[in-house]
């Protein structure tokens, strides 16, 4: 028994040291971090790349856009990721920090668009909303219903209160929590877009930007908006169980569940593939990934992976990413970004 123990411990120690010293000098696979919205698309490309080339399949972590930029910008070297996915554009502060950490050359690649849908169960009638309705129904503070230019705590209980054309159904919206990129995009595109329809709020933007942001971006907390977690599948299931409720999530989840749920009209446009692609649907956002130029040479397969991602068969209008629910960019834009990838044009601070 004693001998066994000593051997075991010795083995462990030697093993641990051997392993410890063998890594760190190189990495033979691509490491990708970032947004959970881009994750389902980046993974498809990675898998395709891994199966059709002699290189290893890239590793993709779903850390969220902010977490991804933090890991990505920590430095240059094999222990840091090569690419970060982002469901929003990189912030100026993030790029400044990256440059300070020695990550000076970053190539920005836009891959396409994602629509954010407001959907409900097929069992109930389809909703015809406007961004203004969404703002009035979901903001914490809304303009006084009596018409004066003051803000009051949101008094609306049913959709009918918000807009007489809507049904008399209690406002109940399931959506993502504040940590989610989908939530950021929703408040920015839908709520702020609706708030701007009120002239006095629009004027506020110039006078007091902070207050303007707070008015547009704060969601009510009295139970009408329910934070349903980051799992969009769960929201879809809850919508089926509760036909009265509306849910907010990415277009790909609507696309996969068209037999159970329907996307509401927003400003008269229904979230369909074509409507998002040609820019008619108002609540859509661009998706990006960012590449560390210093790693393109040192990590095997980087160039080929970038070529795969920006090829027509991946991100083209008939490509396999479109099958997964990514809304492709117009042809001219695709060309612009695939050229940027080929020439590895780095992003400048002045671009942001």
């Amino acid at each position, binding site marked *: 028994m004693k001998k066994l123990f000593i051997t075991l411990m010795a083995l462990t120690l030697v093993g641990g040291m051997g392993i410890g010293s063998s890594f760190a000098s190189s990495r033979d696979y691509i490491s990708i971090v970032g947004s959970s919205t881009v994750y389902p698309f980046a993974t498809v490309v990675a898998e395709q790349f891994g199966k059709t080339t002699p290189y290893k399949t890239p590793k993709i972590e779903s850390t969220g856009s902010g977490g991804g930029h933090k890991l990505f910008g920590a430095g240059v070297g094999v222990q840091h990721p090569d690419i970060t996915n982002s469901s929003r554009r990189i912030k100026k502060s993030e790029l400044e920090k990256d440059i300070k950490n020695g990550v000076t050359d970053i190539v920005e690649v836009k891959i396409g668009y994602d629509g954010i849908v407001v959907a409900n169960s097929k069992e109930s009638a389809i909703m015809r909303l406007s961004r203004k309705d969404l703002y009035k129904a979901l903001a914490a503070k809304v303009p006084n219903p009596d018409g004066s230019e003051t803000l009051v705590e949101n008094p609306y209980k049913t959709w009918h209160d918000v807009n007489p054309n809507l049904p008399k159904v209690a406002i109940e919206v399931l959506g993502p929590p504040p940590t989610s990129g989908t939530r950021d995009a929703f408040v920015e595109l839908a709520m702020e877009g609706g708030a701007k329809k009120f002239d006095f709020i629009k004027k506020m933007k110039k006078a007091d930007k902070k207050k303007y942001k707070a008015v547009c971006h704060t969601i009510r907390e009295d139970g009408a908006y329910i934070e349903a977690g980051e799992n969009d599948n769960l929201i879809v299931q809850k919508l089926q169980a509760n036909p009265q409720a509306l849910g907010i999530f990415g277009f790909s989840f609507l696309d996969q*569940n068209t037999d159970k749920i329907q996307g509401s009209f927003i400003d008269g446009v229904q979230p369909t593939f074509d409507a998002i692609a040609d820019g008619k649907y108002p609540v859509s956002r661009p998706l990006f990934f960012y590449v560390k130029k210093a790693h393109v040479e040192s990590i095997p397969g980087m160039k080929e992976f970038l070529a795969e991602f920006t090829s027509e068969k991946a991100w083209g209008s008939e490509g396999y990413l479109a099958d997964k629910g990514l809304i492709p960019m117009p042809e001219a834009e695709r060309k612009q970004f695939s050229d940027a990838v080929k020439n590895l044009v780095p992003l400048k601070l002045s671009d942001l």
Partner: protein
Amino acid sequence: MSNQITSTVKEQGVKPGQATKATQNSGTADSNAIKTPESTGDTDALHRSPAQTAEIVEKGLARRYRSEKRFQLMGVSAIILSLMFLSILFISIFGNGYTAFKQTVVQIDVFLNPEKLNVDHLEKADYQGMVKESLRIMFPTVKNRRDKKKLYGMVSTGAAFQLRDYVQEHPEDIGKTIQLWVPADDDVDMLMKGHIQRGGLEVNRRLNDMQISWVDRFMEQERIRKRFNVDFFTSGDSREPELAGIWGATCGSFYTMMITLLLSFPMGVGAAIYLEEFAPKNRWTDVIEVNINNLAAVPSIVFGLLGLAMFLNFFGLPRSAPLVGGLVLTLMTLPTIIISGRAALKSVPPSIREAALGIGASKTQMVTHHVLPLAMPGMLTGTIIGMAQALGETAPLLMIGMVAFIVDIPGGFTDPSTVLPVQIFLWADSPERAFLEKTSAAIMVLLLFLVTMNAVAVLLRKKFERRW
């Protein structure tokens, strides 16, 4: 005397109304009796005749039986309730998941055109094109571009890779037409398994009428069938549900558990032996003991944060590696193993130690020759339970990058990998509906591992444990 009876009756808790006439005595005496029930009760018993005692006991008896019954009923209903929840959980998981062990496959005829296949560069040929061509031949009436795209979508994108592998293995078949069973697309699979309904409006379905008619054609020609899903057990993760499997995650779990076992078992046993057999009993050992007990209750995500700060940022170990995952889980399971190890050592009777010391064994000999072998079954049980806990853990792995999309099967301790519970988490979050059954099936596999490990722990205890 009547007062005394009242007091004893009171002691047994019978309501005054139900008691004898004696209860209707003066109120003051009654309250006195309540003030000192025990002292008076004791002496009363001596003066009581057996008949009186029997009477008192009988009166209380029905109530005591009732309360016992009530108590037992509560226990039974607690068990029934928890069994019910458990069975609801199992039924929903098994109900959703059992279909994942079957896979829909489609038979296609592929002509291996020698003009398109260069024997020296077999890996570069356009296999996707060959699969498409064979589908076109099967359905020559499909002309328009959109419909063709739908037609190609009937079989999985994995078909081309399967064809490639086949051709590389059988280069002698080039020039012939081969029949190959390839996985169907996940939507077709869902239709065959009844998760997509055929009825209803066409726009409400993932598959349109034309695609369903193609499936029917396949069925007429017996070119579509369900078979046991081997791929689910042999392949890594994939974004195509019909190609996704748990082997990659299982390997990752295996390497992670190996590291955890190799580190936590010797360290845990060593710590337990020292603390129980050698360490002096003073303030320091008390502090250590309290801390170990506290560590056992620390939320596991905290160990993940520690791992991120220590192993990744300070020591510079690679992200997403089973090595780091194992180290973090070691921190998590160590307290469990130490506590159970100490309990096992404590249960070895002191006479064994005294006997060993008495015939001249040193303290080390006493421990290694006598105490440890007797305590081993208990220690192993604790270790297995700790390992089962670690096997089901996701939270600490989140921080060290093991929540990731990894297709390649990990081949060592530093290859990027993920583990079974993380795989379940990732699939549960995927938009494709077919991942729902995969999620449940993966849960079933994980449960199987956990049940096996716990059963081994029980068996070990049954077989080797000695009672004194």
